[in-house]
């Protein structure tokens, strides 16, 4: 018995729409098996993961808070992936953005600096994220070095740099030797949308980013160029599109968005700079980008869904002692199914029982 792929005459539009749903369905089936293997009641576990977080206001806000960085990073990554530029170092760009923005917060601490502080932090974080992303992009364009490996290596460098700052020069002198900066001043903090709640201004920014990306891709020439360079590089060359320029551009934009997401996370939900500010947002955003089919609206939905798994994972750990790593396994399996189902858009899967039965010249 053999699995054979048969190319479809055209890409299937129906399957393009339902494939993320099939993937989620298959993932849930796999998770049921995994929960059973771990000796947990699968139905209770699924309830804790996917239903319980939707039933109280606090968790709903928390989902939006977690989805904010995921969506912002994934929108940037989707532009890269559409243009066939493989930025997988968003985690590093996120951290560098957080560090750069925090610099202003740390330096203005305790002074009577005005309302300009937060906007300045945003601008600096976005610029730093973009510059950090430009390192692999320029290495790729100028020297042909694999952007996959260089962007990933820079994640470790960014992580160590942040660690150095909060253990060294920026450590809070009153922080009992914990590796953290002091709490940011109110002017350096992202305002909340609901008094006493968790939802903050960052979620509005994320929505604006989604809208901007949708307009860029659907209504502008640059957006068209990005899509063509990725989908049909030869046609793009005949069209005179500059692929290298697009690599630089998409890396810079995705770096800026990741950096902005970084400072929003630090100046928002976290409130100070410390190691471990990201539970792998930069990597989970890769899944969000693919699950959302590299489409801005799809990414918004996918971001909310993966945020749900973060919150659900925490609740399942508290309620049922299910290890947090299950969430990572879940996310990895989900990406596999998403990619496999995407293959269905271009190919038909056929099971052939013996190759010898195929008459000569057939196919």
């Amino acid at each position: 018995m053999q699995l054979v792929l048969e190319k479809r005459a055209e890409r299937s539009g129906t399957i393009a729409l339902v494939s993320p749903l099939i993937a989620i369905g298959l993932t849930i089936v796999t998770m049921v098996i995994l929960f059973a293997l771990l000796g947990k009641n699968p139905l209770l576990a699924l309830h804790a993961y996917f239903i319980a977080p939707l039933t109280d206001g606090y968790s709903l806000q928390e989902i939006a808070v977690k989805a904010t960085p995921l969506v912002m990073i994934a929108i940037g990554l989707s532009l890269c992936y559409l243009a066939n530029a493989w930025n997988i170092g968003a985690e590093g760009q996120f951290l560098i953005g957080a560090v750069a923005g925090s610099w202003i917060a740390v330096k203005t601490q305790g002074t009577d600096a005005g309302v300009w502080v937060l906007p300045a932090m945003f601008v600096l974080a976005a610029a730093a994220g973009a510059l950090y992303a430009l390192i692999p992009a320029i290495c790729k364009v100028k020297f042909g070095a694999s952007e996959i490996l260089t962007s990933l290596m820079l994640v470790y460098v960014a992580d160590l740099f942040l660690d150095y700052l909060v253990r060294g020069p920026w450590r809070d002198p009153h922080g009992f030797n914990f590796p953290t900066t002091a709490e940011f001043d109110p002017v350096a903090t992202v305002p909340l949308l609901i008094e006493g709640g968790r939802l903050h201004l960052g979620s509005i920014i994320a929505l604006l980013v989604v809208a901007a990306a949708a307009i860029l891709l659907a209504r502008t020439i640059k957006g068209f160029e990005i899509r063509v360079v990725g989908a049909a590089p030869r046609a793009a060359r005949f069209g005179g599109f500059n692929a290298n320029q697009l690599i630089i551009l998409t890396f810079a934009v995705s770096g800026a968005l990741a950096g902005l997401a970084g400072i929003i996370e630090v100046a928002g939900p976290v409130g100070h700079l410390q190691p471990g500010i990201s539970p792998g947002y930069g990597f989970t955003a890769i899944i969000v980008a693919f699950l959302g089919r590299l489409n801005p609206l799809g990414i918004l939905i996918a971001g909310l869904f993966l945020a749900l798994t973060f919150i659900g994972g925490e609740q399942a750990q508290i309620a049922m002692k299910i290890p947090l790593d299950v969430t990572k396994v879940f996310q990895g399996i989900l990406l596999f199914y998403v990619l496999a189902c995407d293959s269905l858009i271009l190919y038909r899967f056929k099971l052939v029982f013996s190759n010898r039965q195929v008459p000569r010249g057939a196919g």
Partner: protein
Amino acid sequence: MELVEAIILAVLAASTPLLIAATGELVTERSGVLNLGVEGMMIVGAACGFAGAWLTGSILIGALFGIVAGTMMSLIFALMALGLAVNQVATGLALTILGVGLSGLIGAGFVGERITPAVHLFIPGLTDIPLVGRVLFGEDGFVYVSIALVVGVWWFLYRTRAGLVLRACGDNHVSAHALGYPVLRIRTFAVMFGGACAGLAGAYLPLAYTPFFIPGMTAGRGWIALALVVFSSWRPGRLVVGAYLFGAVTILQLHAQGWGVGIPSQFMSALPYLATVIVLVLLSRARSGGSTAPAALGTVFVPDR
């Protein structure tokens, strides 16, 4: 003199996991498949390897657990990237994300446990020779296996017919297919070999390098192994040089921290990663005339029947 010997021993120990993992990936890439999931396969190999050794008390069984775990991870990759013609870059990333989660899940029960690390060879008379004795005759088994592995792979790729066919698949899968070679089957075996090596390399870490398991203990070594394959221009001989150079950088930064050089430890720890970036840039630049990569590397192949 003792210090020199100690440094050489430490460099060899730090290089061995890189060398094993990179050798496996080299074979995979020579068949035309880019498996970016080395880090994921390594970390699962580390967790399963430690679990095997802790449960049975045998380092050998631990190593086998690591090899089997790495191979099974690579089979997921083969099913996706070869069977279902999915983009290899994305599949490799998925494998790493899954591997990190799985290893945390498997290893959770073993954090804080210790095992007796792999024994070192001891031949009376030979191992006692000053300076070279322990370097040549006093290593753990993994070091010798890694050397044998590279030599074996070199011999296979350049001195056997099967190796020639494998390289043909990597350079031009359409021609290899037209000549009647089962491209996808050959690539599946190459991917499995890469997985087995990555699993063994991962298992080396808790079995010989440190006698305990900590989550995330591969710390990017899988990615450095991928960079080493580029560094080597896909040639086993240069891979050895590259792996030992990287091992030397790792040990250099550890010693520099110990000597109390006035540089913060985090900057020294960043050295191996920065070195990888710099080496990739310099090499890619030197090669601007023409690429030495297998011509079909990373491309999807769906045989027309």
